[in-house]
């Protein structure tokens, strides 16, 4: 019997090695798998490369992982926020490497990794600092149909940590509202994907027409009580029945 339901966060995260590239879902308060990040801090892997849209807020979640000095490099689109204190301090002290990626390129590089695309040309960033490699040399460019494009490569993860709303033992997932954000493409892009969900349902209980991430992209599902994930200072509206 296929059963991807993990008994606990620590079971789900066992064996993540030092040096791993970890894709972490979420955008703002929506879809951040905070319990999995806390689990990763406990699990202890070091020298990580983390991919997230941001670089941590406040002192919890991703910021706590950075604070614990587990992250060697962060790949993101928008590290600078009003409350990105932990990242700011590490960056200014030269203790963390930053690869800045336009948000759409970040999403498409993840998708490309998941879809087996070798590389892709995009107009985003042409003529800007984002068309340069970290060492300052120019990225490959090409004029296609009269428009200049930059060659961008896939972004693969060893592990993806994502948050969904509902899952089953085959790993099928549905998300809630804008918490979907990077979850589906990160699930595709990683060797191993761990999803936290608020609800585990029987096979067949989710409408097959409405499954967003099919279980083929998911390795482990761990249930987290919804009340534990109320973060960000917003109130939750009453939850509708999940399909």
């Amino acid at each position, binding site marked *: 019997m296929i059963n991807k339901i993990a008994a606990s966060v620590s079971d789900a995260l066992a064996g993540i090695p030092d040096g791993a590239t970890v894709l972490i879902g979420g955008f703002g308060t929506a879809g951040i798998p905070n319990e999995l990040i806390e689990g990763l801090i406990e699990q202890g892997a070091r020298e990580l490369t983390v991919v997230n849209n941001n670089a941590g807020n406040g002192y919890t979640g991703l910021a706590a992982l950075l604070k614990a000095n587990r992250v060697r490099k962060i790949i993101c689109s928008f590290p600078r926020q009003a409350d990105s204190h932990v990242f700011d301090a590490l960056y200014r002290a030269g203790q963390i490497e930053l690869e800045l990626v336009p948000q759409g390129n970040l999403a498409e590089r993840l998708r490309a990794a998941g879809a087996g695309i070798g590389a892709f040309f995009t107009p985003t960033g042409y003529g800007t600092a984002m068309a340069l490699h970290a060492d300052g040399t120019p990225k490959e460019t090409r004029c296609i149909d009269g428009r200049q494009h930059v060659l961008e490569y896939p972004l693969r993860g060893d592990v993806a940590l994502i948050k969904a709303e509902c899952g089953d033992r085959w790993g099928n997932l549905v998300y809630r509202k804008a918490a979907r954000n990077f979850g589906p493409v990160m699930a595709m892009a990683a060797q191993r994907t761990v999803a936290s969900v608020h609800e585990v349902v029987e096979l067949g209980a989710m409408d097959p027409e409405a499954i967003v991430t099919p279980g083929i992209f998911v390795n482990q599902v761990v249930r987290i009580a919804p009340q534990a994930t109320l973060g960000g200072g*917003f109130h939750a509206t009453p939850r509708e029945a999940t399909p």
Partner: protein
Amino acid sequence: MSTWQRRSKDELAARVARDIPEGAIVNLGIGQPTRVANFIPAEREVILHSENGILGMGLAPAPGEEDYDLINAGKQPVTLKAGGAFFHHADSFAMMRGGHLDICVLGAFQVSTTGDLANWSTGEPGSIPAVGGAMDLAVGARQTWVMMDLLTKQGVSKIVSACSYPLTGLQCVSRIYTEVATLECTPDGLHLIDAVEGLSIEALQGMVGQPIQVAAP
């Protein structure tokens, strides 16, 4: 000497909103552009896109109705209109890159007369760079409009012959909406769309510091 008045922040937002046609799919950038949503008349059906995976975004919720899973690109709580949809980030940016988005409205540090945009970094040493979705929006939407104060706090025009700040995109801005005038960026420079009442073209050119053609492009 003629007298004229700057558009207030709300008047500027209303001026931008006036040009958004029925049926348009629009992305409003973080900061000042977000205000435009408040001035789109209720009877005009416009679909707002948010890059974190929302089409059909509505205004801010009433106090107490905020939902931590329903936020805009500026991470503020929003609502969803009937007919709205959620999707993942790669689809959201495909909507830009694929040319499906009619208009995006962005803020700017500098815009060149030919529409080069600088809005993500002032390039100051020691500053932490952050680009977000600006580069994808700027080159992806069918029309990119900038909404900004014409002058810096030091009184220097933000419309320039060539951007000195790091670029967001080349020749991507078609219109600039400011507190004193609305201008079109074209390959042969600026054209006037409108200016606030009482402001002469000579006075406007003096403030902008760049030639402005008055005939329609």
